[in-house]
């Protein structure tokens, strides 16, 4: 995260490859389910044995004896509807919820986040010299309407995408944050409104950032978890 600060985001998870190296983020939407982005995974039926999800710790590379750390193997990957670029990861066992591990709410189906809603992104990705690169960093971003976003991005934003407003100082997601949450505060609850997708430039000044709009895929998420 560029322009963020070390912070607490108990639903943000680190996805680790077989060498234990963090490569993408994700969000805990149910004790045994994490949502992330398709671009982080080689295929929809890839062998994820020995990949794991790490949660409960603020450290990018916690010590093996970190009492808060939970490391849960990934059991299964399910690809989302074609245009969504989302994936659901089923964990080998449920995460234990506590002060440092919490579920994030899913929005109502087809819910549109009002403009200026306060949101935040979180991740263990590149910091560009800001924040603290050994810790989870969090940055605040306000929602921008699709109409205004389209004016800035020449009509390229789809309904299935969600924008945040450009800030003067560069704030945004970067390498290693992809798949992580855009969490917005609604009625005192944090809701997963967007998923960070790979973008060409980290925290480009005066340009909106674009996320996958989760509310369009809530029916799919619930169906996968139910079935």
């Amino acid at each position, binding site marked *: 995260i560029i322009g963020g600060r070390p912070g607490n985001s108990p639903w943000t998870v680190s996805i680790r490859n077989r*060498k234990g190296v963090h490569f993408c983020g994700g969000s805990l939407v149910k004790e045994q389910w994490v949502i992330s982005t398709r671009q982080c995974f080689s295929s929809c039926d890839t062998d994820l044995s020995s990949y794991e999800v790490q949660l409960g710790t603020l450290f990018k590379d916690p010590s093996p004896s970190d009492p808060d750390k939970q490391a849960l193997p990934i059991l299964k990957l399910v690809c989302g509807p074609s245009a969504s670029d989302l994936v659901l990861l089923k964990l080998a066992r449920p995460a234990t919820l506590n002060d440092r591990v919490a*579920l994030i709410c899913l929005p109502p189906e087809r819910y549109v986040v009002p403009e200026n809603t306060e949101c935040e992104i979180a991740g263990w990705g590149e910091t560009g010299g800001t924040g603290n690169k050994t810790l989870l960093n969090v940055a605040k971003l306000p929602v921008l309407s699709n109409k205004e976003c389209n004016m800035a991005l020449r009509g390229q934003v789809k309904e299935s995408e969600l924008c945040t407003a450009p800030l003067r100082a560069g704030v945004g997601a970067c390498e290693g944050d992809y798949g992580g949450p855009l969490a917005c505060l609604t*009625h005192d609850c944090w809701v997963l409104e967007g998923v960070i997708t790979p973008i060409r430039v980290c925290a480009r000044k005066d340009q909106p950032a674009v996320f996958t709009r989760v509310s369009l895929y809530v029916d799919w998420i619930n169906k996968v978890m139910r079935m």
Partner: protein
Amino acid sequence: QRRSPLNDFQRLKATQLLSMSQQGPGPEQEEPADTEECARRCTVLLDCRAFHYNHQRHSCQLLPWTQHSAQTHIQRNVHYDLYQKKDYMQNCIRADGRSYRGIQSTTEKGKNCQQWRLKFPHDHRFSPSLRNGLEENYCRNPDRDERGPWCYTMDPAVRHQSCGIKKCEDAVCVLCNGEDYRGLVDHTESGRECQRWDLQHPHKHPYHPHKYPEKDLDDNYCRNPDSSVGPWCYTTDPAREREYCHLRKCTEKRPRLADTTTSCFKHKGEGYRGKVNVTTSGIPCQRWDAQTPHRHHFRPEAYECKDLRENYCRNPDGSEAPWCFTSLPSMRVAFCFQIKRCTDEVEVEGCYHGNGELYRGKISKTRKGITCQKWSAVSPHTPQISPAMFPAMRLEENYCRNPDNDSHGPWCYTMDPSTQFDYCAIKSCAGDKTPSILETADNVVFAECGKRDERLQLKGR
């Protein structure tokens, strides 16, 4: 001192060896033992050729035969691992091959070997014993012939002939960086013996065979699981962690990679050969042939098959996607996730209106081309939606339908046991517009989720 007795054995996981005619194996040894103790017991017995290790009882059963013995067969049994002495299993030799106990019985010129116990057509002085392994008419080297195992031939005109069994280091050559090497060399270039991949001593390491099933980290053979310059292994010498193995380079032309792409990448992008040369966030990549700002071992000349040209994004090490060293000193590597993944979806046929809840066509495959399961079937998946529950939906055969009005279109249960359901290879009809979501507003209610202790946000650790 740190050599494991298991080094003399090849392991077959979840396997039991059964003999149909020979006298039964010894009883399972009741005394709990670990695999190394079992190997030690088998090694000292001349008539022990293999052993089962029973994971439930932590005990072993010594066996006087191997899977190459007559009238034996192997079967899957998750409770057992089968360890067989390498000398009996390998079809290549080490040094002069005096320990070779394989079952080749023809010479290099194709002549059949004479039984060692017979003196005809050629009389000779060798008497079979358990120690010299002169059994049947198998090639052996009882006199330490430097040309390796040999035998007397059934041709009266040719008394004996070498069997031409190759040395293990020559039997399989190395292509590219040897990531596909599956040969049987178990010593390093300095002659040190390799440590088994399934052991963590003398060197602790991350390459557990079960974590890397596609790398075939068998026994203690040289392998290249980490995209090094060539096959290597951890050594049994506590003072030397790992070393490369001396193997023959293939002289034949390297095969063309089948899955090369230029505008998108497939799987992990190891075959990506396009010209994108910036990271996802737009940082220019460092040239592969440069060592600044980042020093690295991915020199183009050492990785001839990886196409490390210019500063293009590549995946020479099996990472998650094409990547590069960046030109920023503070950022060593970064993925090039902005390169699109090649679509793995099949061509669609037909279209549906709305959500496709009225679709009554006969398409019966998913977007990935997997055949749909019949709605009335109960395997490979037990459906939660059946024709009886939705008679109006006409859930016939295995045709794509949308009985639950899924907003992403018609779907089906699939015949792939690992994919319960998926969307079908049908597209939304052109001009069929779904209502925009951007004008509606919902009343929002949430339950337990989305709460966090805000004090932690402020509290340092």
